[in-house]
Structures are given as C-alpha cells and as structure tokens.
C-alpha cells in the first residue's frame, strides 16, 4: 500500500467523520442512520490505515507530503491553513488510532438502534453531530504533531463530551456534566501550560522540536511542567484524587457515548502522557516516577474497591475503568522506574504490557458498556437489584457478556490476562538483579496487582452473576427477550476480538515493535520475558481439549440424558426471587473487611407488623456508600469558592462614596508603590 493511498484513506476517515456530523442535521428521518453509517465507514477506513501503519515496519505517514508528491525543489507542500501545520501518524499514534477507530465503528453501529429506541430522551441530530465531532476531536488529537493542533482538538473533545453527557437532560446529568466540565477544563489548562513550559512558549513548535529543547530546560520549569502534565492527563484518565467526575459522567451519558469515552477517549490520556514522557523528555526524575506508580496503584485499589461495592451497572463499569487505568499508569510508572534503575528489559516489557492493556481495555470496556446499555434497556433501570434471570432468557447475549466480564476480570485466555501476565512475569524476572530500592517497589507492585486482580474478579463475577443469573427480580427482567441482532452484533464482535487479541497477542505485540517480548524466532507463538514463557494459543487449545474430553467422558460414563426440572431446594419454605442474593449482599463481606476505608453506613429499620408480637416485623435495609473523596476533597473546595466569591461580591455594595474612595485609594497606592 503506497503512502499516498494510505494518506487518502486517512483523509477519507477524517473528512467522513466531519461529513457524518453535518449529515446528522439533514431534516430527512433517514439522516440518523446515514450519519451513523457514514461514521462507521470512515472509522473502518481509519482502522485499516491505523493497523497497516502500526504493524508496518517504521512507516511514518505525514499528511500534506503524502498527499501531494514533494514539489520539484523538495520543499514540502505547505498547507495554507494552520500556519502550515503538519498532521501525521507514526507507529505509536497509529496503535491508538486503529483502536479508537475500531471502537467508533462498533459504537456507531450500536448507536443506530439505540437512539431510535430512546428517541424521546435524546435528540438524534444533536447526539449524532456531537458524537461525530467527538470522534473528529479524537482523530485530531492523534494526528496533530504540534501543541496548537493537540490542544485545539483536546478542547473540542472536552466540550463535545460535556454536551453529550448532558444529552439526557435530567438534573443528575447536568450536575455530572458540570463536574466533568470543571475537572476537564482545569486538566486541559494544565496540559496546555505544561506543554508550553516544555516548548518555551512557542505555540507552533513540533513535538520533535520540543524534544530538542527540553534537555536544556532549567530544573524548575521541567518539574513544574511534569506536575502540570501529570495532573492534566491524570484527571482525564480518572486517577484517584481527581476521579470523582468519572463515575458520574459515564453513568449519566448515553450508552454509546460512555462506551466511546471509556473505550477510546480515556486512551488518549495514556497516548498524551506517553507521547510527552517517551518522545519529548530526555529523562524523568525519580520522584515523578514514584508518584506515577503510587497514584496508579492507589487508583487501581480504590477503583476496584468501589467497583465491588457499586450496585449501579454503569457506575460499576466506570470504577472498573478507573481500576484498569490505574493499573496501566502503574505499569507505565514501573517501566519508567526500571528505566531509571537500569533494568532495561523490564522497561520495554512493562511499557508494551501497558500498551497492550490499553488495547484490551478499549475492547472489553466498550463492549461491557454497550452490553450494559442492552441490560438497562430491557430492565429500564440501572440497578443490578432489578435485574436477574437474563441468562436464561437471553442465552447468546449473556454468553458474550460472560466472555467480556471474564476478560475484564483478567482471566486466562483473554487479552487483559496476557498484558497482566507479561507485566508480572517481567517484574519477577527483574526481581533477581534489581537494585534494593527497585526490589521493594516491585514486591509491593506484585502484591498490589494481585490484590486488584482478585477484587476485579469479584466485581466482574458480581456484575455477571447478579445481573444475569438466578430468578428475575423484576417483571421487566422476567419479560426479557433476546435483543435485536444489530444490538447484539457489536457486543459479540468485541467479545470475539478480546479473545482473538488474547490468543494472537505474541503476533500482535511483535508486529507493533515489542520484539523481545514476543520474539520472532519462536514463530510468534510465545510471550517470553523475565525468564518465563506463555503460549496463549496452546494454553487455549489445552483448556478446550480438556473441556471436550470431559464432555465425552461424561457422555460415556453416565448414560443419563434426561434432565428433570424441579424447583430449587428450599427446605420446605417456597423461595421467592426477593430471597435471592443481591449485589449489596454479595459484596457484604468485602464491605465488612474494608470498612475502615469504605465507611459505608448500613441502616436497618424494622417495623413490627403486629402490635403485641415484636418478632414479626418487616425490615428494610438501606446502604449509603459515602463518597470519601467527594466529601473530603471536592465539597470543601466548592463551598470555599462560593464563600470567597460572597466575600468579594461585597465589594459591590452599592454606595457611591465607597466607589469614589476606592478610586482615590487606588490612585494613592499606585503613586506610592510605583514612584
């Protein structure tokens, strides 16, 4: 595929998204389908280009040059717009581009039936146009190679997602929208300031140019820039102290939007963070790396703990997203830490494991959000308590969701496990000859990853089991029917992709450059790092083989084929669906074991039914999970700001004499100070 055809395909994908946004406003009722199909097609183009460049050996696509063959005197064709800015896709950004395009493709397909079913809450043209703009913003961020382009499209993303979150129109979505707006706008300001600090205030300097400037930057500006960038990217990724907006925003946004934001939007923060750290900065100070590791680990733990407690499907997934992002940032931190301490192969393995985890996260998280959309649509409520019994009624759909849930819980044959495996194996391998400080850090990291993996399994099993199994706990769940195939397609495809990515992870990793994580000489079947190997395909074949053998053996040994259905054993007391274990009950032990941190208040009120017999009483139990971060960190800042502005507001107290004396005072003070 020559460069110009690739460039044309890339331009088609970008222009297609823009046109999709415009088509959304077409008065014709078919505009909704047309806009989404167009978006899907352009995303498909983008995916193909992305994959080709990512797996191509060192291909670098620079847009204006690739489109027009260089002019005779070799001066590249300068685009009149954007100060002759250059847009391009190198191998690193191509990985994210292809990921984002795949997720957009599937979400666009999913959006067609979704918005038609929810026509009364969301205005279709508005939602489609904003989604198209959102995707355009993401494409722009990945394509732009200088600060101005990066920040312009970053701002487009935050504004469009702000409006998308509020599309629902409810009070809660408005509150979530504004909380989102505050954090992302501050984050965007921080990123802009950080980048400007690095580039010495030059607006249009290319990232490669900045890489030349940064080595001589004075220590103070470098540190200030690093802190600002960590805050900027960390807050958008949902690292702990700034994560409070994420569950609100993801649960209030319409399902396709939250799938897009968690599947593709969050990856941009990792892209930006790595683009700055790996491509722009010569080296990173030790304290910064340690903060990244600690922040990552804490976010993972907090995210997983709240995911275990959560009873609202979308909030549970949002916390799961925080947990995975925490893991990714921890992996990046460990990679950088190893780089500092000199064990180079751990650096490469950890960074590529983080990249692979980002890819896996994009697939399973968007899949789970799309699936949660279907679950909520069937039950008309986001509470896990109202679901149940869906597996019996929607077998194929629940199969796909089971696959997605297991891959989210880092279970073997799926992609996230491969990323976690290569990271942990690299850590174990590096333990032997690491410096003492690194040894301690790696030991703590291993314990943390184990802890998080365990509780992630707990959360995902809870999500799947309480959501799908046992008897339906509401009549909508009882009346559930298999969703339309077009709804099911994206979920099933994402589940299958997760499995395929897992099985062929050595091939994929080798193609995107992790050469010694998946060495070519083992014909790209084996992940080998830190002294351990894992052949995902053979592992899968062994497991499948065992299951098959068991199936045959069972058929052989017991010729009992007839299954007699009978009600569950209930020691004589007929059981009702209300007696089943709900999400709250299922997570009770964890809530008890971590009560010092979670501080969940459980209130049980019992009202005696008959006056004379106190034992016969109806008990209601309510659980309030206090948002530690919100009450301790965000509420005080909010009230402080309003108090301060009340104070300043008194400046305008209405008396003319006060204003006159203000002016004269200003005059006197300036005279004294200035002269």
């Amino acid at each position, binding site marked *: 595929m020559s460069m110009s055809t690739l460039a044309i395909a890339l331009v088609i994908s970008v222009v297609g998204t823009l046109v999709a946004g415009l088509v959304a406003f077409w008065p014709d009722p078919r505009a909704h389908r047309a806009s989404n199909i167009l978006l899907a097609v352009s995303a498909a183009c983008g995916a193909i280009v992305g994959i080709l460049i990512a797996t191509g050996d060192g291909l670098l696509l620079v847009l204006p040059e690739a489109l027009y063959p260089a002019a005779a005197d070799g001066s590249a064709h300068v685009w009149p717009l954007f100060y002759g800015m250059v847009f391009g896709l190198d191998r690193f950004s191509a990985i994210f581009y292809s990921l984002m395009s795949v997720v957009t493709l599937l979400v666009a397909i999913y959006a067609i039936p979704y918005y038609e079913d929810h026509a009364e809450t969301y205005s279709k043209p508005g939602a489609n146009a904003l989604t198209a703009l959102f995707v355009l913003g993401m494409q722009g961020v990945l394509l732009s190679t200088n600060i101005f382009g990066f920040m312009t499209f970053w701002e487009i993303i935050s504004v469009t997602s702000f409006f998308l979150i509020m599309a629902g129109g409810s009070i809660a979505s408005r509150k979530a929208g504004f909380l989102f707006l505050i954090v992302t706008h501050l984050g965007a300001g921080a990123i802009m300031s950080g980048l400007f600090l690095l580039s010495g205030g030059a607006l249009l300097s290319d990232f490669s140019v900045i890489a030349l400037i940064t080595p001589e930057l004075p220590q103070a500006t470098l540190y200030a820039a690093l802190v600002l960038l960590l805050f900027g990217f960390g807050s958008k990724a949902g690292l702990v102290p700034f994560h409070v907006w994420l569950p609100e925003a993801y649960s209030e946004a319409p399902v396709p939007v939250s799938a897009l934001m968690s599947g593709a939007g969050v990856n941009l923060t990792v892209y930006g963070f790595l683009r700055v750290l790996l491509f722009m900065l010569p080296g990173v100070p030790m304290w910064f790396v340690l903060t990244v590791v600690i922040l990552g680990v804490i976010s993972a733990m907090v995210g997983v703990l709240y995911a275990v407690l959560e009873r609202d499907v979308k909030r549970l997934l949002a916390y799961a997203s925080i947990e995975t992002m925490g893991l990714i940032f921890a992996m990046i931190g460990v990679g950088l830490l190893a780089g500092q301490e000199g064990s180079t192969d751990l650096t490469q393995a950890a960074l590529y494991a983080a990249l692979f985890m980002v890819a896996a996260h994009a697939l399973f998280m968007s899949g789970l959000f799309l699936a949660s959309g279907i679950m909520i649509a069937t039950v008309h409520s986001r509470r896990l308590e109202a679901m149940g019994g869906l597996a019996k009624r929607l077998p194929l759909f629940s199969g796909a969701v089971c696959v997605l849930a297991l891959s989210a819980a880092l279970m073997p044959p799926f992609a996230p496990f491969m990323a976690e495996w290569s990271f942990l194996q690299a850590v174990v391998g590096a333990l032997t000859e690491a410096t003492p400080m690194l040894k301690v850090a790696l030991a703590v990291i291993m314990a943390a990853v184990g802890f998080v993996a365990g509780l992630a399994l707990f959360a995902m099993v809870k999500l799947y089991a309480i959501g799908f199994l046992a008897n339906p706990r509401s009549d909508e769940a009882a009346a559930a029917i298999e969703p339309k195939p077009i709804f099911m397609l994206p979920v099933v495809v994402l589940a299958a992709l997760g499995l395929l990515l897992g099985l062929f992870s050595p091939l994929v990793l080798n193609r995107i450059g992790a050469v010694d994580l998946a060495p070519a000489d083992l014909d790209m079947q084996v992940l080998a790092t830190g002294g351990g190997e894992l052949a995902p395909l053979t592992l899968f074949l062994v497991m499948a083989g065992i299951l098959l053998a068991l199936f045959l053996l069972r058929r052989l040994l017991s010729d009992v084929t007839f299954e007699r259905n009978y009600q569950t054993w209930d020691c004589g007391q007929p059981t009702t669906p209300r007696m089943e274990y709900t999400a709250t009950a299922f997570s009770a032990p964890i809530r008890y074991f971590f009560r010092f941190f979670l501080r969940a208040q459980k209130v049980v009120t019992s009202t005696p039914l008959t006056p004379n017999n106190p034992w016969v009483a109806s008990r209601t139990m309510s659980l309030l999970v206090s948002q530690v971060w919100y009450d301790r960190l965000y509420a005080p800042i909010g009230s402080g700001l309003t108090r301060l502005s009340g104070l300043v*507001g008194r*400046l*305008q*107290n*209405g*008396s*003319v*004499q006060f204003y*006159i*004396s203000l002016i*004269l005072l200003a005059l006197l003070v300036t*005279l004294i100070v200035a*002269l």
Partner: protein
Amino acid sequence: MMTTFTSSEVTTISLAVSFLLCAFLGSGKFRLGQIVRYYALQSLFLAGLLISLAAYGDKHLYLSALGVIIFKVILIPAIISTNAKRSSASGRLTSFVRPAPSYFVSGGTLLLAVLAGMSIAPALQETDLILTVTAFAAMFLGGAMMAVRRDLYSQIIGFFTLENGIAILAAATLGAIPLLAEIGIFLTITIGALLMSVLSRRLKELYAVEDTGELRELVD
C-alpha cells in the same frame, strides 16, 4: 487690578491662598446655598489668579480667566441652584461626618496635598511650589468632599472643586492651553454640571431621593 510687575508673585500667592481658604471653608458648610456661593467665590479667585499669572506669563491666560468667570462663576452655580430650587430640594445637606470634624478631615487632606505637592515639586522645575500645592490641595479637598458627603449636590460641588484644582495645575504648569482645548474643556464641564443636576432633579421629583445612602439597590 495691580499691574506692578515686581509684586506679581505676591498677588498670585495671596490669590492662591484665598482660593484655598474658600475651598477649605466651603468644605465645612452644610447648606446648599452656602457651598454654591463659596464655589463661585473660589472660581472668582481662580480667575484672579489666572489674570495675575497672565501679567507676566502667556497673554492667552486673560481669555481663559474670562472663560472661568463666564462658566464657573456665573453659569455652573446658576445651573445648580435653579435645578435645586425648581425641584424644591431642601437646602440641608447630609454627610457621614458632622460639621465640626469635617474641618478636621479637610485639614488632613490639606496636609496630604502638601506632601504630594512637595514630592512632585522636583519634577516640575519651573512652576513655583505654592501653585502646585494649592492645585493638589483643591483636588484632594474636592475628592474628600465627594467621598465624605452623602447628598447629591455636595458631591457635584466636590467634583467641581476638584476640577478647579486641575485648572490651577494646568495654568501653573502649561501656562495657556490652546484655545480649542480650553473651550472644549469648559463646554464639557458645563454639560457635566447640567447632566448631574438634571439627574438629581429627576431623582428628587420622581423618587424624593436626596441622599445617595438610599441609592444602594445595585448590589451583587
């Protein structure tokens, strides 16, 4: 009209001192009629000062003295008093500070003005110190009057005392401003006076408001 050249400094200083005296006394009075009359007297002394300066300075000062007499001695006091009478505004003026201490406040501002005058004196080489001090004194007195007084009319008079101070400063430093600018400034000041008195009359007639204390509705 003393034309003796030698004693011109003496006359300008005496006129400046008497100008300052009127301004100082005016700042203590609490009847509308009185402060308007003191303002007119003060402008008269200003005109005299200009004439004495013109004696050995620039010939245009005569014209500006004439302008001062027409506009500041006759026209502005007339506008203010007719407007006050037509809207039957009560002559009594109100202030944050009772009459006795208000002299104390004016004394303080005079001291501040002397300080300011002294500090700027080295920069203004030629102009003699007395004139700059009187200019700053008039400005600060006007400013203090605007800040301390509560009722509408005394704020107008305070503003015009400040205006007189600036006129003295202009005369002291620049001698004569080109005619076009001089007339322009006089016109704008009179229109200013007209507008302020129209507003205070409207406030008095429509809402019986004389005291800016009641004008405190626009608050954040």
